[in-house]
C-alpha cells in the first residue's frame, strides 16, 4: 500500500475534463516526480490530490485512509503540505511571518525549523524583515518552499519548486529534498528541470493530456531515449 | 444582441407596459423617461469602469455640471447682470488662469530657491488679485433682483444646444481632474473623485451668481410644447378626441412621448457608438489596459492617455445625461445632487446590468430606476399585507405602518441582493 495513492483521477475546472484517469502514487519516504509538456495537467493533478478540484472519478488515499471527500484544510491537518506553482507567498507579510504562517498548525517550538530554513536559504535570513512581495523571483520561490517545510508534513507536494532559482540554490534544494525524504517524508513534485529531478526521483511519472504516458523509476525514464527526446529536451 | 439580451429587454419593457396598463400611461412614460436618462448615465459610468476599470465615484459632480448647461444656455439673460459684473468675472478668471499657468511654468523651469520663493508669491498674489476682481463682480451680480434672479443669466439659446454643452462642461472638468488624479488606483481614485464631486456640488450650491445656488432656478425652457398650451389648442383637442382621449391626458402623454423620442434617439446613438468602439481594436486595447496596465504599457499602449480619454468621454456622457435631466425637470436644484442618488444608484445600475457590457448598462439603468420608483408603493403594500390581520389601533400595527416609508430603501436593498445573488456578474455579463 503506497503512502499516497491517487488513482484514476478524472476531472477539470469547467465542463471539460483536464485529467483523464490520472494515477499518482508515492511510497513512504520516497520521491516521486511528475514531468510532462506544458498544459499536460500536472498542476491540475496536484490540485486534485490536494482537494482543490472536484473529481468526477477516482479516489485519493493517504496512508490507507480515503480522503477524497476532505477539504484542503482537513488535508493540511492530515499532514499534507503544498507549494503551488504561482501565488505561493504572502506578499505583504515579511519573510519571517511567511514562515511562521507555515507553522500555523504546529503547537511545538518551531524556531529550530526556521533556523533550518535560513540555513538552507541564507539569503532569506538577510531578508527576514522584508515583505515577501518585494523579493526577487527566485527569492520568493525560496520563501515558498521554506513555508512548506515549516509545516513539517508527512507528504510534501511541490509544484515546480526550482522554477527561477539559480543553479546553486537548485542543487541545495534537491539536496535538502533528499534529506527530507530520508526522514520518512514522502515527496511529490512537478519539475521542468526534469533531468536533475529524475536523478533524485524514486519514481517518475510522465503526464500527457491528463493521463499517465510513462511510469517508471526515475533512472529508467532517464534512460528511455523516447522520453528524453520528447519530454526532457534531449 | 443575443437571445438573453432580447429576453431581458423584453422583460423590462414588459414591466413598463404592465405599469402602463395597470397604473396609467403617464406613470409608465414617466418611469421610462427617467429610465432612459439613467441608461445614458449608466452607459457613461460603464465606459469608465467596464471598459477601463476606472473607479469614478464623482458622477454626481459631472451630472451637476451638465445640469448647469441648460441654465447658462437656455435661460434668458438677466438684464444688466453682464454689464454689472460680467467683465469683472472674465477678468478674474483670466487672472486666475494666468497665475496657475505661471505657477506651472515656474514649477517646471525654475529650480531651488527661486522656485521655493517664486511659487508661493505667484500663487498668493494671484489669489488676492483674483479675489479683488471676483468679489465685487459677484456682489454686483447678486445684487440684481436677488429673490428672482441675482445670477449671471443665460444666453437665451435653444435648450437642446445645452445637451452637447453640458457634455462639454463635464468633459472640461474631467480633463482637469484626469490630469491630476488619474495616477490613483481603485478605492483611492474612488474617494478622490468622490471628493471632487462634492466640491463641484458645493460650488454650485454656494456660488449664487452662477445659477442662483440653493435658491434654485425654475422654469427652464423646454424643447417640447407645454401641456397647458396643447390643452388650449383646438387642433390638439380635436386630435385627442379622435383617439378617444381627454385633452389633459392626451397632452401629458404627448409631451412625455416627445421626451421619450428625444431621449431614445440620444440613447440609441450612444449605444451604437459604444458598441462599435467596444467591438473594435480600440475596445480590445481598453480591455487590455483594464486587465493589466503594466503589460499594456510594455506593449506600447499609452495607458495614461487612454485613461484620460475614456475618463473624459465617460464624464461627458454623464454631463449629457445631467443636461437632459434638468431639461426634463425644468428646474435646477443644486441641493438635490446627493451622492447616494446620483453616484451610488448609478453604480448599482452598472453592476446589476453587467459591467463591461453596453446593453447591460442600459438594462441596469432602466430596471433599477423602475425599482427605485416602484419600491415605495411596494413597501407600503408589504406593510399593509403584514398588518392586515392585526387589530386596529394596536401599537405594533401603528408602529409597523409608521415604518412603512423605510421599507422603501429596505425593499431596494433586498431586491439588489436578490439580483446579485442570482446574477453575480450582472444580468448581462460581459462575456
Amino acid at each position, binding site marked *: 500500500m503506497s503512502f499516497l495513492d491517487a488513482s484514476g483521477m478524472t476531472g477539470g475546472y469547467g465542463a471539460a475534463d483536464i485529467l483523464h484517469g490520472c494515477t499518482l502514487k508515492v511510497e513512504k519516504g520516497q520521491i516521486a516526480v511528475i514531468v510532462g509538456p506544458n498544459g499536460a495537467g500536472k498542476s491540475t493533478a496536484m490540485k486534485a490530490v490536494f482537494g482543490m478540484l472536484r473529481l468526477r472519478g477516482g479516489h485519493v488515499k493517504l496512508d490507507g485512509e480515503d480522503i477524497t471527500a476532505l477539504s484542503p484544510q482537513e488535508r493540511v491537518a492530515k499532514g499534507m503540505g503544498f507549494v503551488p506553482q504561482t501565488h505561493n507567498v504572502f506578499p505583504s507579510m515579511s519573510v519571517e511571518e511567511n514562515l511562521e504562517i507555515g507553522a500555523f498548525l504546529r503547537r511545538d517550538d518551531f524556531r529550530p525549523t526556521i533556523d533550518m530554513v535560513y540555513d538552507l536559504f541564507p539569503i532569506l535570513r538577510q531578508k527576514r524583515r522584508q515583505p515577501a512581495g518585494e523579493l526577487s523571483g527566485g527569492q520568493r520561490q525560496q520563501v515558498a518552499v521554506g513555508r512548506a517545510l515549516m509545516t513539517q508534513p508527512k507528504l510534501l507536494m511541490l509544484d515546480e519548486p526550482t522554477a527561477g532559482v539559480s543553479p546553486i540554490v537548485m542543487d541545495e534544494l534537491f539536496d535538502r529534498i533528499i534529506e527530507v525524504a530520508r526522514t520518512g517524508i514522502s515527496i511529490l513534485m512537478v519539475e521542468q528541470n526534469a533531468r536533475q529531478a529524475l536523478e533524485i526521483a524514486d519514481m517518475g511519472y510522465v503526464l500527457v493530456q491528463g493521463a499517465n504516458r510513462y511510469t517508471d523509476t526515475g533512472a529508467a525514464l532517464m534512460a528511455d531515449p523516447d522520453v528524453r527526446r520528447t519530454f526532457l529536451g534531449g | 444582441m443575443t437571445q438573453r439580451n432580447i429576453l431581458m429587454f423584453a422583460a423590462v419593457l414588459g414591466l413598463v407596459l404592465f405599469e402602463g396598463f395597470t*397604473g396609467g400611461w*403617464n*406613470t409608465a412614460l414617466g418611469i421610462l423617461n427617467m429610465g432612459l436618462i439613467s441608461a445614458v448615465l449608466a452607459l457613461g459610468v460603464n465606459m469608465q469602469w467596464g471598459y477601463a476599470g476606472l473607479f469614478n465615484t464623482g458622477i454626481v459632480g459631472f451630472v451637476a455640471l451638465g445640469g448647469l448647461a441648460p441654465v447658462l444656455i437656455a435661460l434668458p439673460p438677466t438684464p444688466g447682470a453682464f454689464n454689472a459684473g460680467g467683465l469683472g468675472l472674465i477678468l478674474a478668471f483670466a487672472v486666475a488662469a494666468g497665475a496657475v499657468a505661471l505657477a506651472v511654468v515656474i514649477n517646471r523651469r525654475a529650480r531651488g530657491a527661486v522656485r521655493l520663493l517664486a511659487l508661493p508669491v505667484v500663487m498668493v498674489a494671484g489669489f488676492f488679485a483674483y479675489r479683488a476682481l471676483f468679489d465685487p463682480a459677484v456682489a454686483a451680480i447678486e445684487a440684481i433682483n436677488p429673490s428672482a434672479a441675482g445670477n449671471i443669466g443665460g444666453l437665451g439659446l435653444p435648450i437642446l444646444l445645452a445637451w452637447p454643452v453640458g457634455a462639454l462642461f463635464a468633459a472640461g472638468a474631467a480633463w482637469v481632474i484626469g490630469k491630476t488624479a488619474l495616477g490613483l488606483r481603485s478605492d483611492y481614485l474612488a474617494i478622490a473623485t468622490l471628493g471632487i464631486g462634492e466640491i463641484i456640488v458645493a460650488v454650485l*450650491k454656494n456660488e449664487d451668481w452662477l445659477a442662483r445656488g*440653493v435658491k434654485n432656478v425654475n422654469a427652464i425652457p423646454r424643447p417640447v410644447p407645454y401641456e397647458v398650451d396643447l390643452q388650449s389648442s383646438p387642433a390638439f383637442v380635436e386630435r385627442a378626441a379622435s383617439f378617444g382621449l381627454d385633452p389633459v391626458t392626451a397632452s401629458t402623454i404627448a409631451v412625455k412621448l416627445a421626451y421619450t423620442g428625444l431621449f431614445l434617439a440620444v440613447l440609441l446613438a450612444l449605444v451604437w457608438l459604444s458598441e462599435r468602439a467596444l467591438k473594435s481594436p480600440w475596445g480590445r486595447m481598453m480591455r487590455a489596459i483594464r486587465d493589466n496596465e503594466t503589460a499594456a504599457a510594455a506593449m506600447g499602449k499609452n495607458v495614461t492617455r487612454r485613461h484620460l480619454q475614456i475618463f473624459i468621454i465617460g464624464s461627458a456622457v454623464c454631463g449629457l445625461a445631467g443636461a437632459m435631466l434638468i431639461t*426634463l425637470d425644468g428646474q435646477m436644484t443644486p441641493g438635490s445632487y446627493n451622492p447616494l*442618488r446620483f453616484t451610488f444608484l448609478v453604480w448599482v445600475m452598472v453592476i446589476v446590468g453587467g459591467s463591461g457590457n453596453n446593453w447591460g448598462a442600459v438594462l441596469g439603468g432602466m430596471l433599477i430606476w423602475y425599482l427605485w420608483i416602484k419600491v415605495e408603493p411596494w413597501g407600503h403594500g408589504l406593510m399593509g399585507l403584514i398588518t392586515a390581520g392585526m387589530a386596529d389601533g394596536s401599537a405594533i400595527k401603528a408602529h409597523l405602518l409608521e415604518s412603512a416609508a*423605510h421599507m422603501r430603501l429596505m425593499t431596494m436593498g433586498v431586491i439588489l441582493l436578490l439580483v446579485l445573488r442570482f446574477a453575480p456578474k450582472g444580468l448581462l455579463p460581459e462575456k
Partner: protein
Amino acid sequence: EEIKLGISLGFTGPLETMAGPMALGAELAMKEVSDSGLLLDGSTIVPVRSDSTCVDSAAATAGVERLITTEKVKAIVGGMCSGEATASLQNVAMPNGIVMISPSATSPALSSLEDNGLFFRTSPSDARQGEVMADIILEKGIKSVAVTYTNNDYGKGLADSFEAAFKAKGGTVTVNAAHDDGKADYSAEVGALAAAGGDALVVAGYVDQGGSGIVRGAIDSGAFETFVFPDGMVGSALVEKFGAEIDGSFGQNPASGDEGRDIFLKLAEAAGFDGTSAYSAEAYDAAALMMLAMQAAGTSDAAVWKDKVMDVANAPGEKIQPGELAKALEIIKAGGDVDYVGGAAVELIGSGESAGSFREVAIEGGELKVIGYR
C-alpha cells in the same frame, strides 16, 4: 364617490421626523370629513401617501406622478420642501390640472411662481418671517447678531430676508453663514460664528438637523448664550434637547394665536400624535381647504374647485375651527359662506399663501412659553 387625496411629504430623508405628524394632521382632517358623510352627497376621502424625500426632486416628481395618474387623486397635500414642491408642481400637477396645497414650502420664490391658480400654501412666505423676526430681536434690545442658516432655499431665503430687514431697521449682522444639514460635526461652523461674535445667534435651520448641532456646539463651547429660533427650530424637540440650557432664548413660528391651534392640539392628542410638531396644523388646514372648496364647487374636479379655495379660506363667512369641518360642509351645502380659520389661522393673500400670523415664543425655565402673537 370615493375621492382620493394625495399626501406628498418627505417620509424618508433629512426631514423624516417632521413628515409623520404632518401626514397624520392631513389625514385627521380627511377622516373627519369622511366620517361626517356630508361631502358631496356622502363621498368618502381616502388618503394616499407618497414619499417626496424632501431633497430628490426626481423621486418626488415620480411619486406625485403616480398619485395623479395611477391613484387618480384629486389634489395633493404637499410638497414639503420648497425645491421638491416646485418640481412636482411644475412637472406634474400643472400639466394635469391638479391642485397642490403645501403646508410647509415657505420659500419666497414660490410667491411669484406661475401656477395657473393651482398652488396654495397654508404657511407664510419667509419674506414675512424675516421682518417679524427682526422686529422681535430689536425689541429685546439686541442690536448685533450672527446668523447661521441651513443651506437650502428655505434657509437662504429666510436668512437673506432677515438680514435685509434687520439692517434696514438699524441692526448689524456680524456674519451670515450657511451650514449643511446632516453633517457629522459642526465645530467648524461654531468656531466661525464665535469668531464673528454678536449678542445672539439666529439659527435658521431645522431642529432635528444641523440647527441643533450648531446650538449644541455653541452652548458647549460657550460661544453664544442667547439664540433666536425661527420656524424650523421651534418645536417640542428643542426644549427636549436643550431645556434650561437655552433659557433666555426666543423665537417665532407661523402659528395662530387663536383658539384654533389649541383645538387642533387636542384633536391631535386624541388621535395619538404630536400636534405641536412643525407644520402639522398647516397640513390639517391644507387638507381641510381642499375638501371645503370641493363642497363649495359641488364637484371634485380640480379645474372647477381651484377657484373656490380662496373663497372658503377668507372672509366673509362663518369662522371654522379645527374639528368643525362637518359644520362647515353643512353651511356650504346650505348655500352659506365659510371663513376657514383652522389650526393655523388660515388667511390666504396674494396668489394664495398664508398671510402669516406668527407666534412669539421664549424659553423660560426649560419650557417653551408662548409670549404672544403678531
